[in-house]
């Protein structure tokens, strides 16, 4: 459907073929800005220590002039990866910290957010509109505004400086509720009524209709959630003192220029899961963005 409409607009708007190519080129050029950071990261990660030290001398304060760089290292080496993966146990701990927290948050959001989204999408109930508005407002409140209130409750529960302090509040984020709600609201109500007439209970309808038909919204919430929580910084910075509990996203900045090789390899490894999820879930990502913007 999208394709057909797109095609129609193309037909309507299109003037000449050559002009098309020109527009395409003009659009591609800035988007290439995306590739430059990745290219620098990858080349840096396979550069030897000595070579990096030479290129980065101005930043290290050892020389005048500017940074230099080579897109193809003189002596490509996997030494950085080897040292990071085999000789830095701390890196592994933080990698699995990140993985563990993201998984726990996403599973929790599934368990709590999907049913809530279904309640908003499939039922009429008193104060529905008020509660929905409350959820929207909470979705828009930045972390900093609720930082103190989160701290008070986490401190009261005695879970400050544990990973629960990151996972539990995130589970009750209202953002995934909206994205799932967007998916559920596409299910025709008549279908549910027909199932009810056939004697299906509400739980059965949720399991047999809501979950399979709302799969798009659910997956969208998961893709957006992964990218968000893999990049988590504000919460662990405020609520985790013990560095052994930190996620990967806070480890990287701790590396100094002198160990730039490490930093590049660690950055590439941090990037990989996010890129994987992005490539696998791009359609869901786009759908999720649109769902998040739907009005309740």
């Amino acid at each position: 459907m999208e394709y057909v409409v797109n095609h129609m607009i193309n037909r309507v708007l299109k003037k000449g073929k050559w002009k098309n190519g020109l527009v395409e080129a003009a659009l591609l050029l800035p988007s290439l800005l995306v590739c430059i950071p990745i290219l620098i990261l990858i080349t840096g990660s396979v550069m030897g220590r000595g070579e990096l030290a030479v290129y980065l001398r101005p930043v290290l304060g050892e020389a005048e002039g500017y940074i230099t760089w080579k897109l193809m290292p003189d002596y490509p080496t996997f030494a950085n990866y080897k040292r990071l993966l085999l000789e830095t146990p701390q890196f592994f701990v933080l990698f699995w910290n990140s993985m563990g927290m993201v998984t726990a948050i996403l599973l929790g959001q599934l368990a709590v957010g999907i049913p809530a989204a279904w309640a908003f999408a499939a039922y009429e109930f008193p104060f529905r509109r008020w509660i929905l508005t409350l959820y929207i407002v909470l979705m828009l409140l930045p972390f900093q505004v609720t930082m103190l209130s989160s701290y008070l409750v986490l401190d009261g529960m005695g879970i400050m400086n544990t990973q629960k302090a990151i996972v539990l509040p995130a589970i009750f984020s209202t953002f995934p509720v909206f994205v799932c709600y967007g998916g559920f609201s596409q299910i025709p109500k008549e279908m549910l009524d027909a199932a009810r007439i056939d004697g299906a209970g509400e739980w059965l309808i949720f399991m047999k209709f809501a979950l399979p038909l709302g799969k798009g919204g659910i997956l969208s919430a998961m893709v957006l959630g992964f990218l968000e929580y893999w990049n988590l910084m504000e919460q662990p910075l405020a609520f985790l003192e013990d560095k052994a509990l930190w996620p990967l996203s806070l480890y990287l900045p701790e590396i100094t220029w002198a160990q730039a090789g490490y930093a590049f390899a660690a950055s590439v490894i941090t990037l990989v899961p996010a890129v994987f999820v992005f490539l696998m879930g791009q359609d869901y990502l786009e759908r999720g963005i649109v769902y998040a913007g739907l009005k309740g």
Partner: protein
Amino acid sequence: MMGRKRAWIFFLFPSFAGVLLFVVCPFADVVRRSFLTAITGTFVGLQNYRMIFGNTAFRTAVKNTFLFTGFSIPLLVALGLAVSLALSRVKRVRLIKSLYLFPMAMPTAAIAIVWKMLFYKQGFVNKYLLRLAAAGNPDTVAAPIDYLGTGAAFFLLCATYIWKNLGYTIVLWLAGIMGINGEMLEAAKVDGAGNMQRLFYVLLPNLKGSMYTIVVLSFLNSFKIYREAYLVAGAYPHESIYMLQHLFNNWFVNLDLDKMAAAAVVCGIVFLAGTLLLWRAWDDREV
């Protein structure tokens, strides 16, 4: 067996209970605390509020946050629209869209080191810009800009924000453009409307709804720019990018809980008012 009338309670309860427990009730407590002193807990009326409004750091942070959102969100929205309109004319939409979306997936921590290399005083951007300037006019001797330690940090942060968020803006604009009836555009063309007329009289009025969505989501994401700011410039960056996020964090570290409480209430009220205003405007489109 649950009945149709009560099923919603069962579905909504876990989420709603969590929201009450983790956000609503503690926030009510914060409102209460904003009228007390942090240590002794005695009632001091509006003193905390007077204190933050008299606080230079708070004023700077509010000003910078307003400047940042006021400058970068309109730019992001307009740029997104321009790219989307151009994209709706070309064939390789998917590939180009992916490229624009990709920065969203890049963890801030992973690109922080590249940003430092690019925007350091002795970094690549200065290097090539100066080379370009020298090639254009050999007589001038331009000095390298310290992008992180001067007012240029503000524009660098805006650029980073746009780089990171342009993708989803494009997705939303495109979704809006796709939703417009092709026949309407065709009809306008038959009636002799030019490109610009079609843009202003057919496309844009129909995209009003998309715009509200985009503004709200851009606003939501604008606060996350703190990650980049913090990773590249630390907890006390150049004054031009010292924003509310830095301030809250530093107050938290210093345990200035009374100031935090008052500031959280003020910000909460401003956001609530802003959301409700947008919400009203959002509603209008359906009338």
